[in-house]
Each structure stands twice: as C-alpha cells, then as structure tokens.
C-alpha cells in the first residue's frame, strides 16, 4: 500500500511536469497551454515530488525511504514517457 501510494504520487508529479512542457502540450493538445496553467502544473509537479519524498521518508524511514523513492521516481518517469509515446502515436494515426 505504501508502495502504491508512493508510485501514484510520483506518477502524478511527473505527469504534471511533462504537461508543463511545451513540446508535450503540443503532442497532447495540438496547442500550448496558457502560461499560468503551465506554471501551476510545474509547481504542482515539483510539489508532488517533494510530497512523495516526504511520504517515503515518513513511512519507511530515511534509509529505506530514500531507496524506495529513488526507484519510484525512475519508474514513474518511465511510465509517463511511455504514456506520452502511446498518446503521440495515437494522434499521428
């Protein structure tokens, strides 16, 4: 359960960070998002990453928490990348 929550937090964080990037906004919505929304997404992304770290350390202690966090951010980033690839391919068709 801890791992699931952690994974969800990291996934949401990277999704927000990816959405805050112009290139991926164009992939997903054909147009860029307004600047305020982009900034909000970026803040949310970093905030969620920090929250995930706090959650990991709180639930598993510093040593295990940091290890789990390092693993989960990599996995989540890879999943977001995979999602963007799929979304991009869909739109091309």
């Amino acid at each position, binding site marked *: 359960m801890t791992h699931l929550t952690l994974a969800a937090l990291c996934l949401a964080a990277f999704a927000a960070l990816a959405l805050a990037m112009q*290139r991926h906004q164009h992939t997903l919505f054909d147009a860029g998002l307004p600047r305020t929304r982009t900034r909000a997404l970026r803040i949310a992304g970093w905030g969620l990453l920090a929250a995930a770290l706090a959650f990991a350390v709180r639930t598993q202690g510093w*040593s295990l928490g940091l*290890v789990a966090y390092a693993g*989960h951010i990599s996995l989540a980033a890879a999943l977001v990348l995979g999602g963007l690839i799929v979304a991009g391919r869909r739109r091309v068709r």
Partner: protein
Amino acid sequence: MKSGRPKARGLRQTMSDLHIWSGLLLGWLLYAMFLTGSLSYFRQEITQWMLPEAPPPRSVPDAAQAAQRVVDALGRVAAPGSPQWSIALPDARTPIVSAAWRLPQPEDDLLSAMPTLGPSFVPSNAVPVLAPPTLAPVLAPKPVPGQALNESPEGMPEDTLEDMQEDPLDAAPGLAPDPLREPIVEEARFDAVTGERLAGPAGRETQGGDFFYRFHFQFHYLPLQWGRWLAGLAGMFMLVAIVSGVITHKKFFADFFTFRWGQGLRAWLDAHNALSVLALPFHLMIAYTGLVVMMLTYLPWSPDLAFSNGGRGQLAKQMSAFLSVPPRSHVAAPLAPVAPMVRAAQQRWGAHNVARVIVALPGDAGARVVVARGDEQRVSYSPQYMVFDGRTGRLLAVREAVGPAAETRGVLYALHMGRFADGALRWLYFLLGLAGTAMVGTGLVLWTVKRRARLPEPARPYFGFWLVDRLNIAAIAGLPIGIAAMLGANRLLPLGLAQRAAWEIHILFIAWGAALAWAMGRPAKQAWIELLALAAALLALLPIVNALTTDRPLWASLRAGDWVFAGVELALLAFAALHAGLALRVARHRSKEPKAPPRSASPRPSPPALRDPEPQPTLREAAS
C-alpha cells in the same frame, strides 16, 4: 546549441568522445554484467525454479526449529572434527536450509580456528564472523604460512556455499585455484521442516541463480582474481561513461520525456537517453557501489597505510567483526541446544530476520555459536550478531554497531545488493537493472547506427565496424539464447550426469559461442532476426519444457498461487515476447540505401557522434 561558445562545445565534444569509447570498449561485458546482475536480484527465486523437486513452501519455516534440526543433522553428516559449521537459515525466499562445514585440516590444532588473514595479521584465536557480505571468510582456508596476504575477506561478496571453495584466498593473485587441491569445505542442502538432507532428485545438482550472481562480478572460466579485476575495470568504465554521458547530453531536462518514434538515429538516441536519464539515480548508485563492494580487491594496499599496525587485518576486524574463540580444548562436550539461541535472536531482531547460525569448534568444550542478523529492512551490510557459549548456551556478547567508516561501506554495499528490499522494491531494482541493460544495449547499437550510414560500402564495412556489429549481435541476442539454453539444460540433462551443475553452465557458453559464430557468419540483419527469433523461441519453450519434465506446469502453479514458479515462467514469456517483438521490428525495418554520400550536405569534416540536434536526412533514412 546555437550558442557561439567554442570552449563549452569543446568540453562537450571531448566528453562525447570519452563517452562513446568508454561505453564501447567494455560495453559487451557491461551488457552481460547488467543482465546477469539484474537476474541476481531474483537469484533465490531462480534457484527455486531450478530445483523443481523441492516442494513449494507453504509457510515460512520456523528458523529456530530448522536451525536445531540441521545442527542435529550436521552432527551426523558433517566430518568429525570439523572446526566450523555454517547454516544459512530458511526464509520466505529460501525454503531450503543450506549448510556448509569446513573439513578438518592438520593445522587446526595449531590455530584452533580459521583466521582469514595470515597468522601475522590476526591473533590466531580470532575468527572472522560472517562479515555479512560473506560467509567466505568464516570458512576461508588458511593462507600458506609465509605467503603474502593476497586477499581480504572483502574480496568475497558472497554468501553462497560453493564460493567458499573458490575463495580468492585460495589462490595467489592471478592464479587459478589449484584444481587438484583437496576441497576444504563441504556443503549440503536440508529440508527446513524435517531436517533431512536433500539428496537425489530433490537435490538436483545445479548452481541455480547463484551462477548469474557470480558471473556478474567474476565471470566464468577465468581465474577469480582476473575476473574480478575485469569486472572492476568494466565498472570503472561504466562510471566514466555515465558521468561523461551526462555532460555530453545537451538537453537533459528539455528532452526529459522526449522520444521521437521511428526516426532512426534520433529514435535510438532518444531511447538511449531516456533509459539513461530516467534511471540515472540507479545507474550512478549501482556503478559506484559496485566498485565499493570490491574495493579491497581493487585497492588491496590502502589499509596498510591507513592502519599503523596490522593493516588489512585491522581493517577486516573492523568490517567483518572478529570473534575470539578460545583454542580447541580437546575436551569433548555436547553442543547446547541451538533453538533457544535463535529464539533469543528472533526476539531481538524479528521472527524472520535471523540469517545464519555459525558453530565454531562443534563438539569441543570451547565451542561458540554465532547467530547473525538478517538483512530485512536494514540498508546496511555491517555485521550484527550474538555470540553464545556452545557448551552452556549462555549469551556471551552482542554486536550491533561498527565504526562510521565501516558503516558507510556497509550501507553502500547493501545498496548494491538490495537484499533488504521487500517485494515491490525488489521489482524496482530488477526493472531498473533491465533499464541499465537496455541502456548499454541501445548505446552499443547506436554506435553502429551512427556509422552505418557513413560507410562508403555498406555491404563491406571496415573491420572495426564489422567487429562491433557482430559482437553487438552476439552480446545482445546471444546471451539470452545462452541463458535460455542453460535453463533448458537444467530440466533436460539427466539427473545422474556427472558434473551436472557444471554442464548446465557449459551449455550456456556453448550456446552463446554458437550464437557468436552465427553472428560472424551471416549477414548482419539476418543474424539479428534469426538470433532474436531463436532467443524468443527458446524462452517461450521453457515453460513448455517445464510442464513436460516436472509436475509443476505453469497452469498448476498459477492455480496453486505458487508465485515463484509462475513468476519465473511469466517473466520468461515476457522476455520471449520482447525478443519476438525486436525480431519483428528488425525484420520489418527496410534499410534504404543512402543514395547520396551521407555527408555531402554537411560541411563539417567529421561529425561528432552524439551531437547532431537533427540528424542528416540521409542518416535518418538509413537508420530508420
């Protein structure tokens, strides 16, 4: 990168070259190290799969009872006069008890125990107690008196039994252990519930997943010392490649989530970048800690400088915790019950967190019993143990802390091994290891993709290109073939075959070598397709072979909820699908012969490899 700052460009260019060549030179080794290292995170599970006759564990066996039963059994089984027994207790991942005992040596009476380091370094009555990295030191043979100390206990990141026979202490540096030498350690597997020695079919002779683990840092058919030096060299190159790669990477954050599909070189580069960047914390950690794990193998003399007296002996004492054992009293005395000692340890560290019982001088009045803590939820490898009087069962000492430097090493060590990990974390380690494997693989392929388009005569490349191309095929498609062949051999070789465990491994290398020969003899594209398809077929066949040769087919495992067997086989099928997908992609790939000389459009004389923001159209075509 339009900026006109020649200095920065120069640095990046240098780093790019460094990255390319450090990555390429040992890339094939790194690929094999990454793949087998990733598999090692599940080595207990792989071992279980390779021992199909042992029943699936229903519940975690009680460690205290198992310890007592196996100690009782060792009293009958082990050589009389053995100076030391070591028992790896069962846990959720290892339902079998492995035990090893040291054979009595003539000098035992002299030294009474087994100092890992020569008599000149350690008091003769000191026993290194399970430096947690390793059991090896405990049972390590004594160096020949007068022989220079050539290895530290550190050189043995191993706690499996076979390795005790292969401990580098056996050999002078650079020399293979003498095959004619009498073995100094014997081992056996025991049923955790009944305490019966597993023999015959249930003891199917195999190295199991331990092979991957050992190959990962010392390879095979090589003198251990050479293998470990080679692994260290590869690790160092890996670290260099990672750091130079990060510097080379132009748009670390801008391209963070970027993958441009189907554009040949661009796609390979994006894939390589994504695999490297997204898992960067893991890659950095694993390369660095890998070197730390073996640091005393690579820098054996530094402790002599750091400690004024005793050098390596002092260091080993710090890191692996030595236990003073009184000399053999030559008064026979029965061993006190071991179960209460394990219970005491369980109370201290948790019911499933006792890893090992070591009995020094069993049967002697001066016997000592050491109960060592497990790795569960503890990101450190520093030794923690309780020492009991073997005759009275009285607790003599508890050791739960080491100095800060030793603890730092313990933590880095544990990070590399990941044995503290629970299920989810173990999978993360495994997946990130595979990402590293793919990072090395894409990097190797990138080297050829980049250069293929520039070949004046693509059909007849220069030797260096040809060699890299073929070695890539053999490493990337060949190793899975070898692994699948080995797993198949585990099921198909006759159980009574002499040297069965060794033959399983020979078959891996025979298949791998055959793949190399095939890659050399066929056109590159055909070789890729054929070998990837063969790997897919062999991997997919394994569950079928298992269903035919054991009574634990995949469907039964799934129904019974036997996730070790089902997991291994589902993973094999997933790998089969991956290789089939790759084979299909290569087969569909239509290489367009570059019509014009690839570089005609570019004024640059020698295009830097990883720098093109937009590949030349011809490059793109040729590689897509």
